[in-house]
């Protein structure tokens, strides 16, 4: 029964579902695209102020139409009111930031809360006026996709198309100017006009989204998909595409669920769907995802242990202490300061790696492959030590620690540069700058 309904919704079997789905998905795409630039412009919360500032416009338009004897539920007129007061609110934020010592975050808070409060006061008047059909106004606050008709969906679709087309045509301009407005201005781009255009598109998406998602949550369709896309890529063009896709997916899921549970506030359901997409991105994102970060951290930690142990074994042999199990173990723990647990773990990793082997009751030996690796690691370490001694004037006692930090991340190019800087070593492993043997060794 439920599965049946779910299929009907997700496959767009009903005409109503198709209309609503078209509207919200287009809105999701438009919000995702323009939101990327809004985020890069570091103005995410300006959209929040705009949407809250739209409430007195909606309520004021309602009262005005009522007083003039028109139909106060006419959507285009209410949206016009929203547009005017939203723009006015944005103007107030920019004015306060520019001409007083109030910082931008406070200006945003002031405008959004005061305008919203004024809107609530007007709404209070409407609700206590006998005979005013006030119920329609609530959909502006919570969003009500279910009541969306074909004309609304077409309006949203057209506006979304305009936003996407403008963003594609002006992609290069927007990119330059959102990343580095000063450079763009210095380079002769009409920065002021581009900024105005970008903000106009943001306001357009916000006002159109009001009816679908609601005043309080409409900022989510501008902010959440781009923030989610950030976890997947570092490139702007990819980010725009991913963000648009995520906006569409979130809208699709949200609208579908709210079609199944019509009592739930549709705007909130759409936002929670966007939130789910965000959480998935944050965990599994391929560029900045939390799991990827953890994995990268673990890999580096493991490589560091292995390389350190390889060098220790190599130098153990150099010092002539690798003959018996006891002297090798004593060398590694006493002279090199390995603790048993770390040592066991490192040896297991190297064994698994094929770098070392051990005859029954014998000491650990480097395999052929292991010897090559150990020689390379040791060579990098010592080259870097010599470099620090000779070129960076680091004290002898400190070079070991300095090299320890850097040796694990030396790339081939850097090693080549080191060889060029220290040509006398050729391809051999240089002798250690420290005394290796019973008396000392590096910790």
């Amino acid at each position, binding site marked *: 029964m439920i599965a049946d309904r779910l299929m009907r919704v997700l496959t767009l079997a009903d005409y109503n579902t198709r209309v609503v789905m078209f509207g919200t998905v287009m809105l999701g795409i438009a919000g995702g695209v323009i939101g990327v630039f809004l985020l890069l412009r570091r103005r995410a919360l300006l959209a929040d102020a705009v949407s809250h500032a739209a409430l007195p416009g909606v309520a004021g338009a309602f009262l005005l139409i009522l007083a003039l004897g028109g139909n106060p539920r006419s959507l285009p007129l209410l949206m016009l009111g929203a547009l005017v007061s939203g723009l006015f609110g944005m103007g107030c934020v920019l004015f306060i930031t520019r001409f007083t010592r109030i910082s931008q975050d406070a200006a945003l808070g002031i405008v959004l809360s005061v305008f919203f*409060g004024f809107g609530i*006061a007007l709404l209070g008047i409407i609700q206590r006026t006998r005979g005013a059909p006030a119920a329609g106004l609530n959909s502006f606050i919570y969003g009500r996709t279910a009541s969306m008709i074909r004309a609304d969906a077409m309006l949203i679709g057209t506006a979304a198309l305009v936003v996407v087309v403008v963003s594609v045509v002006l992609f290069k301009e927007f990119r330059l100017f959102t990343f580095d407005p000063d450079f763009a201005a210095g380079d002769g781009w009409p920065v002021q006009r581009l900024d105005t255009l970008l903000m106009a598109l943001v306001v357009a998406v916000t006002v159109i989204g009001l009816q679908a998602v609601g005043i309080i949550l409409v900022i*989510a369709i501008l902010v959440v998909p781009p923030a989610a896309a950030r976890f997947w890529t570092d490139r702007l063009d990819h980010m725009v595409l991913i963000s648009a896709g995520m906006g569409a997916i979130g809208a699709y899921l949200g609208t579908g669920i709210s079609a199944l549970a019509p009592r739930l506030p549709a705007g909130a359901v759409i936002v929670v769907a966007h939130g789910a997409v965000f959480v998935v991105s944050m965990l599994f994102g391929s560029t*900045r995802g939390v799991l990827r970060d953890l994995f990268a951290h673990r890999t580096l930690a493991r490589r560091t242990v292995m390389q350190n142990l390889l060098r220790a074994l190599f130098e153990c042999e150099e010092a002539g202490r690798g003959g018996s199990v006891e002297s090798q173990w004593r060398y590694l723990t006493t002279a090199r300061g390995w603790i048993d647990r770390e040592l066991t773990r490192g040896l297991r990793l190297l064994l698994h790696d094929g770098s070392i082997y051990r005859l029954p009751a014998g000491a650990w030996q480097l395999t052929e492959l292991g010897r090559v690796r150990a020689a390379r690691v040791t060579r990098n370490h010592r080259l870097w030590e010599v470099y620090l001694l000779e070129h960076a004037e680091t004290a002898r006692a400190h070079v070991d620690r300095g090299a320890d930090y850097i040796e694990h991340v030396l790339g081939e190019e850097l090693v080549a540069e080191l060889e060029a800087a220290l040509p006398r070593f050729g391809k051999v492993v240089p002798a250690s700058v420290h005394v290796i043997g019973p008396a000392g060794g590096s910790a």
Partner: protein
Amino acid sequence: MIWTSLDTWIVVAAALAGATCALIGSFLVLKKVSMMGDAISHAVLPGIAVAFILTGSRAGPVMLVGAALVGILTAVLVQLITRHARLEEGASMGVVFTVLFAIGLILIERAARNVDIHPEHVLFGAVELVPLHVISFWGWDVPRGVVLLVVVLAVNVLLVLLFFKELRLATFDPELATALGINANAVHYVLMVLVAMTTVAAFEVVGSILVIAMLIVPGAIAWLLTRRLLPFLLVSVGVSVVAAVVGHIAAITVPPLFGYADTSTSGSMATVLGLFFFLAMLFAPEQGLLARAWNTARLRLAIGSQDALGLLARAAEKAGEGSLSAAEFRDVSSSPFAGRRLRLAATLGLLRARGLVAARGGRYCVTVRGLEQGRAVLRSHRLWERFFYEDGQVELGELHTAADVLEHYTDPGLQQELAERFAGIATDPRGNRIPEESSPARRIGAPRARTPNDREKEPRA
């Protein structure tokens, strides 16, 4: 207007909510994290909803605990996302609070079926309903919401008083605070917890969104009026209490003027706060737009006067008598009055009123006192030209522009220094004579133009 005990309780509740919010919100404004107040006040919604579903009651310690947890959660999530995604903090806030708010909205909508809670009341406040739920203290009925607010206000005041020094340091200079052994990060989190608890205590009165107005606007007003922390907090709290009273009166008196019924007190309070902010923005004694416009105008006039006197002194040098017509004032080469009739008229009017210039037959003649001041300007100007020519390697053609700016900011001491530097040189690089200093007894020099910054440099008591 009919005032009943209901109205008294409404005003008391609103004033308490306002004072509590203003006290904590001031620190948000000072730390420039106002929008964290926005984020937290949205984000506590699921906390309220869960506590409500669990206990079935709208006030109580469970809600405060829930709020504190959500406050920490919000702050942590915002930091986490900002760091991982390398986004601006605003964007991370936008993500966190919208999603949490949406979850809260859904929970409340579901809970609304069987418990007495309405989304409208949570969002926009229902101060009108506050007096209906009372607790008795020794036979004295006090609304439950008021009791909760008093408790939270007491906690806030106590914490602010106890940790005044730490709060001040951590607010204004987190690095110094850390160096002195105060954990600025911990202070931040404690502040967020307080914001969340305050929000929850106040939401019944003003609603979870209008709380933002009460958190931020009083602090912003104080920010325009004072620079010291204690007066700042007092102004902020005072403003919000006044706004509560005025807001409620406006709610029941203003709409009837237009033929409507009354309206919601919380919306009206936010509007009144907005008006107060607007007034402060215009009329604040130092930071107000009018005060700053007045300062700018005064500076312009002072500079204009010096320019005009300088031009007259030049004319006196050439023709023996210092007089110019209005047209000549504008047409002299590189005249600061070119195309600025209004500024010229205002300047000449001021000079005439001060007795430095006299009008005679359509021409403006400089008086003895005026000539003296004009010469002082000219002296500064030509000394500067000499300076830029000798020490600054500035081209001959550019000298005038450079000297033109500095001549207005040259006090007698600086003029003296320049004169000593070029002692024995009597002319500017083009060969114009540098006017003599006026007699030492009457050495006035050009009155130095005061810049708006002067005031800020003065030490404060």
